[in-house]
């Protein structure tokens, strides 16, 4: 077990310079505002006293290093500033809205994997065949579609034309009552309180936005699955396994696919980046009350503290996810785990 702990620790420490860079960039962004930042953070129609007050709070009259130290101190206390729109601390706003985003993103990932992996595997197994061309066209087209357009198309087809999906107005029907909150995942909460009507409603509202997000991820996932499978299928040990007459399903799944999943896992980080970015837009299309739409509302309202807080929080999350993926890879790939 010791080598694993070392790996985790070492990876966390290696991630520190990057995390530091992220904080520096976030800090610079707040100070890059054209004109007087205090005016921006004070909101609409500020009084001169409010501006002066804010300038003192933000330490704008002090030298930059001191400002940075103060900023760092605030961050370590979990203080991301205060939102103008809601009046709450930004961190609190983000944590309240985060479960909605998480439910959406996790569902999207599951959907994307369900589509991408079979497609990628089928394409690799029958290279240059009909299914391979379909797989490649699907992945390239999915890569070329902006998420906002995908979302709108889905709404048009399934809500307007076919009438099978509910209106894109959030997680539940406007008149619906949300189930008591335990996890923040509406579907899970509905199941926990046996509110089947709410569960169905929440699921119905979840499908289209999750699909729109999933399509964003299908592009890179299909491609990497296909290329990883192709590489593995032409490797020596697969040829050897054929010589021993292994049953075909075992060869494909237990031998080839498992080895191919390793490169797919390393791509997972990039896919997450796509998804987090796509989240912002998809949440707007479907009025999904997550952190993405929070950031957009803040942008529109020139609520700079909220926007910058969002950027920093999301970047930190992304860095942590990448670290987690690296560690997971180290566990799954036996050679790394056992120190080969």
């Amino acid at each position, binding site marked *: 077990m010791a080598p694993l702990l070392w790996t985790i620790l070492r990876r966390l420490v290696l991630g520190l310079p990057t995390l530091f860079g992220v904080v520096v960039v976030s800090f610079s962004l707040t100070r890059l505002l054209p004109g007087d930042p205090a005016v921006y953070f004070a909101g609409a129609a500020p009084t001169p006293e409010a501006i002066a007050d804010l300038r003192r709070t933000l330490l704008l009259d002090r030298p930059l290093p001191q400002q940075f130290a103060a900023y760092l101190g605030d961050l370590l206390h979990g203080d991301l500033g205060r939102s103008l729109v809601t009046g709450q601390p930004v961190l609190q706003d983000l944590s309240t809205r985060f479960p909605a985003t998480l439910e959406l993103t996790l569902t999207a990932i599951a959907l994307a994997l369900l589509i991408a992996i079979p497609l990628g595997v089928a394409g690799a197994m029958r290279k240059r065949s009909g299914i391979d061309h379909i797989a490649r066209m699907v992945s390239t087209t999915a890569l070329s579609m902006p998420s906002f357009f995908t979302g709108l198309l889905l709404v048009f087809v399934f809500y307007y034309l076919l009438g099978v999906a509910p209106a894109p107005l959030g997680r539940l029907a406007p008149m619906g009552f949300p189930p008591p909150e335990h996890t923040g995942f509406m579907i899970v909460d509905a199941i926990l309180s046996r509110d089947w009507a709410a569960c169905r409603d929440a699921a119905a509202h979840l499908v289209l936005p999750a699909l729109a997000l999933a399509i964003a991820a299908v592009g890179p996932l299909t491609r990497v699955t296909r290329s990883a499978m192709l590489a593995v299928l032409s490797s020596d*040990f697969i040829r050897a396994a054929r010589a*021993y007459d292994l049953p075909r399903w075992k060869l494909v799944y237990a031998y080839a696919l498992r080895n191919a999943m390793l490169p797919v896992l390393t791509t997972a980080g990039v896919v997450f980046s796509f998804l987090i970015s796509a989240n912002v837009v998809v949440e707007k299309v479907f009025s999904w009350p997550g952190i993405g739409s929070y950031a957009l509302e803040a942008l529109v309202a020139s609520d700079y503290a909220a926007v910058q807080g969002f950027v920093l929080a999301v970047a930190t999350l992304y860095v942590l996810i990448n670290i987690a993926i690296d560690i997971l890879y180290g566990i799954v790939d*036996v050679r790394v785990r056992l120190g080969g």
Partner: protein
Amino acid sequence: MLVVDRLSVHFPTRRGIVQALDRVSLAIEPGEIVGLVGESGSGKSVLSYAISGLLDPSARVIGGEIRWRGAPIGPIRERRTTRAAVVQIFQNPRASLNPIRAVGRQVSDVAGQDRVAPLLESVRLDPSKARNYPFELSGGQCQRVGIALALACEPELLIADEPTTGLDVITEAAIMQLIAELSRSRGMATLLVTHNLPLAAAHCHRIAVMHAGQIVESAPVAALTQSARHPYSAELLAATPQHAATPDDLHVIQGQLPDLVAPLLPCRYATRCRNRRPDCDLSPPELAPVASDHLIACRHPLC
């Protein structure tokens, strides 16, 4: 038991068509140990893959066939209508094993859980190694696992493609001894594919010499080592380093393997041959017996 009858194989590639095998003929009887010897790039591996059915799907058989107990079999295993009890072990033992699966599990995948321990014992591997992964084992141990996997298929013909290249001399001797013993005890025929002529001479009953996709000579070991008739075989024998010799005494075979994509002469050794005569370029030499069980493909063999 196994007959390769004038097999010719081409590979289409970007550079052109690689004429990998040209009218190759070979026969293996039950229990025989046959050596297939030639330089790197002579087509030995292509022939071995064709027999064990692991050839690349882009390969085209343009002439001849392979027969297993009289029934024709194709170069791609999964498409064969007759199942041939042929199995292969490979040049890079560690790369031929699934890197993220314990070796014991790999053996049980082929043979079933019950036979794992006996199989590992039969290749002189401690059954406790079943829990290990390939990267934790030495090259020799990985090759033993490979042999165990091969034996699990109860083969009648084992193709050993450069099984000891890359292993140290002591391990090489141990592995070769293991193969020879298993061959004897199970009545299993073996095709030993190697560039190492002395190794083949030490362990085989018969040796077939291959050059640029053509079989040039096939003879019992004694006949070949003492009275090789094909100029190339003689050169190969002469090139073997001797114990008492110095580096200056090393014999070098002149010329290089011809490019298999370019147009080729009927006898592909002609450009390197000391015995070349004008009539060598007229038509391809056929494998014909010069003595009982001693075949060569040459119009002007050595005496």
